[in-house]
């Protein structure tokens, strides 16, 4: 509607501030990269030593890290779990968010369901861990499928909160127009509401993907003994109580960071481009 082609000039003060703010991110990242290229024998406690460039920019740490973590297989498992979880989350949680968002203002039942589900966010994982380990085993779900189901449940509170919050800004008039044309609620949802929530889908996708990608505990507890690893599980190999190979570990973390960063950049575009329908309020 109002995709304005405005050539308002760049807001330079903001750019300068953003660049200054970047230093808080560049510095830790610089340290991580430098350490990932160094050898253990180059590690010191002195500031000049830790900030200095590595003696050589050899990729051997990365190669070794890939070998130790069985990189491609672990990556495959991580990607599989993350993608399936994200897709299911977008489908199921948006529906749930829709049902709740449209009804909680006038229905006691949906208000209760909303609070019930959102409060699930605050259950400390430690208390669920033992019962879940038992329950998933009983149901034959002590594998990656079980992990995915658990994720879909764990992130439901947060995502339902996000979706139902977003729906507040989507006028009900849009649906009513479709309904007047004789479309069922189900159809209206998929034809009108689901597409319009695109920026929220992208947000949910990023947040869920990130949480799943970095999670250690759930696969550790549920998938132990299956011989399958996710990347974070495999990365535990670098860390024991009595010694941590920071150089290999950092190399491996940097490798694991790339896929999720790419995913973020793609989703980010969706958040911005999602508002093609412009004025939703």
């Amino acid at each position, binding site marked *: 509607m109002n995709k304005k082609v405005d050539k308002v000039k760049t807001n330079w003060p903001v750019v300068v501030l953003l660049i200054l703010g970047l230093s808080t991110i560049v510095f830790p990242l610089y340290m991580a990269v430098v350490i990932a290229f160094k050898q253990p024998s180059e590690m010191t*406690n002195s500031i000049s030593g830790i900030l200095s460039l590595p003696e050589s920019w050899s990729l051997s740490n990365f190669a070794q890290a890939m070998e130790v973590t069985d990189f491609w297989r672990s990556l495959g498992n991580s990607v599989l779990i993350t993608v399936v979880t994200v897709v*299911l989350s977008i489908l199921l949680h948006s529906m749930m968010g829709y049902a709740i968002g449209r009804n909680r203002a006038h229905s006691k039942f949906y208000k209760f369901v909303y609070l019930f589900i959102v409060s699930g966010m605050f259950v400390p994982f430690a208390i669920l861990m033992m019962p879940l380990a038992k329950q998933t085993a009983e149901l034959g779900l002590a594998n990656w499928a079980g992990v995915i189901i658990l994720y879909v449940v764990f992130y439901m509170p947060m995502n339902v909160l996000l979706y139902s919050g977003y729906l507040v800004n989507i006028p009900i008039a849009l649906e009513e127009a479709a309904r007047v044309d004789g479309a069922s609620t189900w159809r209206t949802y998929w034809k009108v509401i689901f597409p319009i929530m695109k920026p929220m889908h992208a947000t949910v996708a990023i947040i869920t993907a990130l949480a799943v990608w970095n999670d250690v505990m759930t696969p550790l507890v549920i998938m*132990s003994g299956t011989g399958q690893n996710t990347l974070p599980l495999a990365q*535990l*190999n670098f*860390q024991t109580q*009595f*010694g941590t190979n920071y150089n290999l570990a950092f190399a491996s973390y940097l490798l694991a960071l790339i896929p999720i960063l790419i995913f973020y950049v793609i989703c980010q575009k969706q958040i911005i481009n999602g508002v093609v329908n412009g004025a939703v309020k």
Partner: protein
Amino acid sequence: MRGKSARYLSAALVLVMTGGLMLSGCSGSGESSGKTEIEILQYKPEAATYFDQVEEQFNATHDDIHLTIDSPNDASTIMRTRFIREDYPDIIGIGGDINYSYYVDAEILADVSDYEGMQNIKESYIDIAEALEIVPTDGTYIVPYVANAAGILYNRDMFEEHGWEIPTNWDELMSLCEEIEAEGILPFYFGFRDTWTCLAPWNGIAVDLAPADLCKQVNKGEANFTEGYAEAAEKYIQLMEYGPEDPVAYGYNDACTAFARGESAMYPIGSYAVPQILSVNPDMNIDSFVMPASDSSDGNTLNSGIDLGFCVTADCPNKEAAYEVLDFLLEDENIQAYVDDQNAIPCREGDFELAPYVDGMTEYIESGNMTDYQDHYYPSEMAADAILQTYVIDKDTDAFLARFDKDWQRYNRDIIREVQEYEENGGNE
């Protein structure tokens, strides 16, 4: 259209997931039919390479048994989740600490006193294992495999260069520290930001000065820590004076790096730190000596406990096969390989070649003059390490001892009740 495709997608997902379920359900049992399956779950991920080799060699030489050894990270969590699922491995490899006491008490482990290989295990380590039982039992539940020892690591080259002698009692240690400081070198490094390292010097001092069974005496109501640990607590704080100004600022890794870079002459920590130190400075010449906390030179004892032992679970269907696996693990060359790999001390009798980092301790090892770590009796939720860290910060000996006694009663309530019931019943339940 969007609606339909989304529905197809979700249907497809459900299919994929059920498919995945069935696949993973099947793959569990297929392999190596006809053979007895033995599974070991051991808690030392740093020894994973060694255990992979053992697994391979065992399977290459045995037709009737198929062995799998799992060396996961965070094995304690994995063990607990598997216990709760009642999915017990046949053999578990654990350390001789309070978890072992709990497992014995929970009757998860099988009695292995009928295992023949037991006869070759050093008496002192069997005694250590027996002492860990909350109330005495008839059986034995662990086959001690290797031990570790903690004392003080020192920079051998630095000592030789300055002509420093290895101290044998507390006064000698103190004057050595003065001497080192006079040369402008820091005597000790500490990495107390990693709370658990607070226990390393503490254990070394406490075994010399407190009765070995102090914790058990307290549980029986016959002693208290305020008296039992008084001297150890004072000497512990004296040691702090010869470390970095703010020991809580540095972590274990910082301390290892600092010691490796020659920033301190000594580092009171177990031999497990040697690989980390050598990774920073591969040429370093490290040795260790027993913590000389006693005032007399012959009053010291080596702080050594079971680092890894194997327990057969009560659930194991085929004990004979499990024993055959243990026989294999206890063969000379396998123990030697482990010792070489992990700088450990074997628990079995025999002529093994030890790592150079324990040279200073050989005398004690050979004569069997060793005592288990005090902290093997501390329940982890009591956080004795954090209590020590607090003590390092506020240096209030009375408060430390009082708190130790108070927290001990609080966190060992169930154990104390069990012990006292046992005592009341005249020692036999």
